[in-house]
C-alpha cells in the first residue's frame, strides 16, 4: 500500500516535471522574420544574427521567405505565420501598398507585427527596425560618389524591384541630396532590373551607351551590384565610370579590388537580424523601447524615435578596397 503510494507519488512528480519541461519548451516565444527573398548573402547574414539573438534571449527564431521578390508570395507566408500562432512576426516589406489587411489580421489575433530592413511607414506596424536612417544611406552614397567624381557629371541609377519601398526611399534621398548640394551633378531617372544580374548588366551597359560622359553608376539593390560592376568591367570603363551600391563586402569584394566599384555603402546585416529578434522579444514581453537602448551583444546603444516608431541600428558603413577584407558577410 505504502509502496504503491510511493510509486504513484513518483509517477505524479515525474509527470509534473515532464509537463513542466515540455510546457516550458512550448512556451518559448517564437519570433519570425520574413525576408524579401531567401538565399542571398544579405538576408543569410540577417538570419545568422537572428539565430544568435534567439539563443541569447531565449526565444525560438523562425526564418522563412519567398524564393523570388514576389510581394504576393511574401504576404502569403506572413499570413501563414500569423495563423500558426507565432508571437511576433517581422518582415522586410516588398510592397507597402498591399500590407494593411495582413497587419489588421495580426492585430486581431494578438500577434505583434513589425517591419525590419524595409518599412511600410503608413501601416499599423508596432515598430520599424531600421538598419540606418534612409536619409543617411541616400546622402552617404551621394557624398562619397561626389568626392570621387569631382562633384560634377551624370550619374545613373540601376535599382531592383520597382515596388520595393526601401530602394525607392533611398533613391528619393539621393535625388534630394543632389538637388540641395551638388548642382553640377545630373542624376538620371532610375532604371529597374528586377532581381537578376543579367538585366542589371543590360541596363548599366545601355546607360553607358546613352550617356558616353557618364561618371557614376549606383546599384541600389544588392542583387544589381554584380551586374552593374561587370558591365563597367566589360565596357572597359574602369576609372571613367565609378560604380557603387548597397552591396555586402562578400558581394562586391572582387569589384572593389578590380576598381569597377569605388566603394560600397551598407550596414552590418548580421547586427540588424540580431536587433530584429531582440525587438520582437521586447514586444512580446510588453516592454517599451527607451530613447537609447543598451542591447546585450551589440557594441553601440540603439536609438528609438517614439514619433515615427523607428529603432535605429546606427550610421551606415562605407566599404572600400582598403577595409573590405575586415568583413566576412
Amino acid at each position, binding site marked *: 500500500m505504502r509502496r504503491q503510494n510511493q510509486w504513484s507519488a513518483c509517477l505524479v512528480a515525474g509527470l509534473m516535471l515532464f509537463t513542466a519541461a515540455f510546457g516550458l519548451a512550448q512556451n518559448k516565444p517564437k519570433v519570425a522574420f520574413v525576408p524579401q527573398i531567401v538565399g542571398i548573402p544579405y538576408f543569410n547574414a540577417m538570419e545568422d544574427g537572428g539565430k544568435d539573438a534567439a539563443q541569447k534571449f531565449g526565444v525560438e527564431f523562425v526564418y522563412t521567405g519567398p524564393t523570388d521578390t514576389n510581394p504576393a508570395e511574401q504576404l502569403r507566408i506572413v499570413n501563414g505565420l500569423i495563423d500558426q500562432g507565432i508571437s511576433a512576426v517581422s518582415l522586410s516589406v516588398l510592397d507597402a501598398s498591399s500590407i494593411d489587411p495582413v497587419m489588421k489580421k495580426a492585430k486581431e489575433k494578438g500577434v505583434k507585427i513589425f517591419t525590419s530592413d524595409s518599412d511600410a511607414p503608413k501601416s499599423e506596424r508596432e515598430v520599424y527596425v531600421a538598419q540606418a536612417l534612409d536619409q543617411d544611406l541616400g546622402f552617404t552614397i551621394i557624398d562619397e560618389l561626389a568626392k570621387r567624381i569631382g562633384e560634377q557629371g551624370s550619374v545613373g541609377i540601376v535599382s531592383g524591384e520597382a515596388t520595393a519601398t526601401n530602394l525607392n526611399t533611398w533613391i528619393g534621398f539621393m535625388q534630394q541630396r543632389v538637388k540641395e548640394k551638388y548642382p553640377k551633378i545630373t542624376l538620371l531617372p532610375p532604371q*529597374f532590373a528586377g532581381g537578376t*544580374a543579367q538585366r542589371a548588366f543590360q*541596363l548599366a551597359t*545601355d546607360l553607358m*551607351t546613352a550617356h558616353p560622359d557618364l561618371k557614376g553608376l549606383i546599384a541600389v539593390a544588392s542583387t544589381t551590384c554584380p551586374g552593374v560592376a561587370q558591365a563597367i568591367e566589360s565596357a572597359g570603363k574602369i576609372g571613367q565610370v565609378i560604380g557603387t551600391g548597397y552591396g555586402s563586402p562578400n*558581394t562586391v569584394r572582387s569589384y572593389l579590388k578590380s576598381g569597377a566599384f569605388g566603394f560600397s555603402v551598407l550596414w552590418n546585416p548580421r547586427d540588424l537580424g540580431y536587433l530584429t529578434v531582440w525587438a520582437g522579444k521586447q514586444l512580446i514581453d510588453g516592454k517599451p523601447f527607451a530613447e537609447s537602448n543598451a542591447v546585450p551583444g551589440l557594441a553601440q546603444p540603439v536609438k528609438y524615435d517614439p514619433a515615427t516608431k523607428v529603432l535605429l541600428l546606427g550610421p551606415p558603413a562605407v566599404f572600400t578596397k582598403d577595409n573590405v577584407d575586415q568583413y566576412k558577410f
Partner: protein
Amino acid sequence: MNRKQWLLGRREVTLALACVAASVLFQFLSPYFLTGPNLITILRNSVELLLVSLGISFILATAGIDIAVGGALGICAIFVGWSVQGGWPLAAVLLIGPLIGTALGLVSAALIVWGKIPPIIATLGLFGVYRAAIFLLLGGSWISGLPDTLGPAVNTSIGGVPVVGVYVLLCYLVGWLIIRWLPLGPAILATGGNERAARLSGVPIGKTKFFVYGFTGLLVGFAAVLYVARYRNVETSTGGLVALDAIVASVLGGASVLGGKANLLGTMFGVLLVRLLQNGFVLMGAPSLWEQVITGFLLLVVLILDALAGNRRVNGSRLVTMP
C-alpha cells in the same frame, strides 16, 4: 501541308520590319542607338535568349512546353562557375554546361514520355525542384568575381562581329537543317500537329520528344556557358524567368502553343525585337518598366491576329478581311 505553311509564313518579314521601324524611331530619339557598339551590345545581350528560344521553338512545335529551362540554366551555370573556379581546362569548362543541360532536358522528356505527365505540369514541377536545388547548391553565397577563363573562347570578335553571334547562327543553322532536311523535322511537326494521327502513321513520338527536350537542354547548357563567360557571376536568380521570355519570343516569331509550327527565323527576330525594345527604351531615357508593357502588348496583338487568321482559314476564304 504544315511544311508548306511554315515556308509561306511571313512572320519573320513582319518582325524584321518591326525591328527596322523601332530602330528608326529610337535613332530619332537617341543619337547613340544606331551605332556599332550599341548594336553589338544588343546582339550580345540576346545570345542566351536566342539559344533558349531556339530550343523552346522545337518544343512548342511538338505541342509541348518547358517552363523549367530557367532553372536548368541556373543549375548548369553553377557547375560551369564551379569548374571555372576550380581552374579546369577550357575544353572541360565548355563541355560541362551542355552535358548537364542535356541530362536535365532528358529528365523532362522522361517525365513526359514515360511518366505520361502533361508537359506543363511536369516542367512546372521541375522548375520548383531546380529553383530549390540552386539555393541548396549555392548555399546562399553567390559565385562572383570569377577569373576570365572563358573570355578567349567567347568574348572575342572576328572582324568586328562577336564570335558568340557566329555560335548562335551555327546553332540556328543546325536547327534549320533538322527541321528542313532530316526525317526528324516532319516527325516533330507531325507530333505537334496531331499526335494520334502521327502515332498511327508510324512516327516515333517518344523518340521525337526525347530529342526536342534533350536538344533544348543542350542549348540551355551552352547558354549557361555564355552567361558565366559574360557576367562572371552566378547568383541564385540566374536563369530567372527566361522560359517566359523564350516562349514570348517564339510565339512572336510564329510558333503556336498548339504545336505543328516552327519558324526559326521568326524566333530569331522575335528575340531581337524584344531586346531591341529593352535597349531603346533605356537609351531614350524612359523608365525600363514601359518595355514590359510594350512586349506584353505586342504578344497580345500577334495572338489576336493569329486567331483572326485562323478563322479565315476555317472559313475557307482568304479574302475575308478584318472588321
